[in-house]
């Protein structure tokens, strides 16, 4: 039952990412063709452009949600691949705990980036 719940959230996160990461990809990799959310200057990665997006509460929320969804989806996917390798039970437990710790630490780093930026420059 718990595995089904984990798997369900993996799908939900994948679906959420399709839109949020899709938006991120449109901004970053179709900037010359579509040019969306380029508020300051031509370079999409210029600090002025990055700052103008990061200062917006909506974008900050999107980034935090995206970091969480991407970490869960990615680490769950990798965990599933590792568990397929028929390892011994204690190793399963180690992988589960290790991935949760790694995920939480990376989420804190990623989310802190968005929150601290607004506090410092917003």
């Amino acid at each position: 039952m718990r595995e089904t719940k984990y798997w369900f959230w993996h799908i939900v996160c994948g679906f959420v990412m399709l839109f949020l990461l899709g938006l991120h990809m449109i901004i970053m990799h179709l900037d010359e063709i579509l040019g969306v959310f380029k508020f300051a200057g031509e370079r999409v990665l210029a600090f002025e452009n990055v700052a103008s997006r990061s200062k917006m509460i909506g974008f900050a929320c999107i980034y935090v949600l995206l970091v969480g969804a991407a970490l869960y989806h990615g680490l769950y996917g990798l965990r599933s691949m590792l568990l397929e390798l028929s390892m011994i039970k204690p190793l399963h437990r180690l992988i589960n705990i290790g991935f949760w710790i790694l995920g939480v630490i990376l989420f804190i780093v990623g989310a802190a980036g968005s929150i601290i930026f607004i506090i410092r420059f917003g």
Partner: protein
Amino acid sequence: MFKRYKNYLGIAGWGVGRRWGIERYLYILHRITGLGILSYFLLHIFVTTSRIFGEEVWEFMMRSVDKPIFKIGEFMVFLAFCFHGLNGLRLIFIELGFKLAIGEAEEPVYPYKTSLNKQRPLLFVCMVICIVLVILGGINFIRVFHF
């Protein structure tokens, strides 16, 4: 609790499609692209968080990754995302068995009606959209870096 079966082939089991169809190869590619995106994403978190230290640090970070190898890598990530996202959407549609035009999951009994008549057109639609996005991304890439 799921019953776990022994994986006698190990990692080799992921790569050998043998008599299976195109879906099997998409499954392998889905895993490879997933691993690629994850590896990039873990580093991406640290690079993007550097913006909190101000413009100088950010521009220094951007200059350090402003090399053809990184740019090609970024395009590969875009390509991987297009494939992984659209193939993932296809998998969600099939897995959840929406009664649109796809049909619900059923026992894999020959001649696999659901797979061939309903699921495969979805596969082609997703892959065509993926190719269109990759071409657009490629044009953008060429425009930005003047290759």
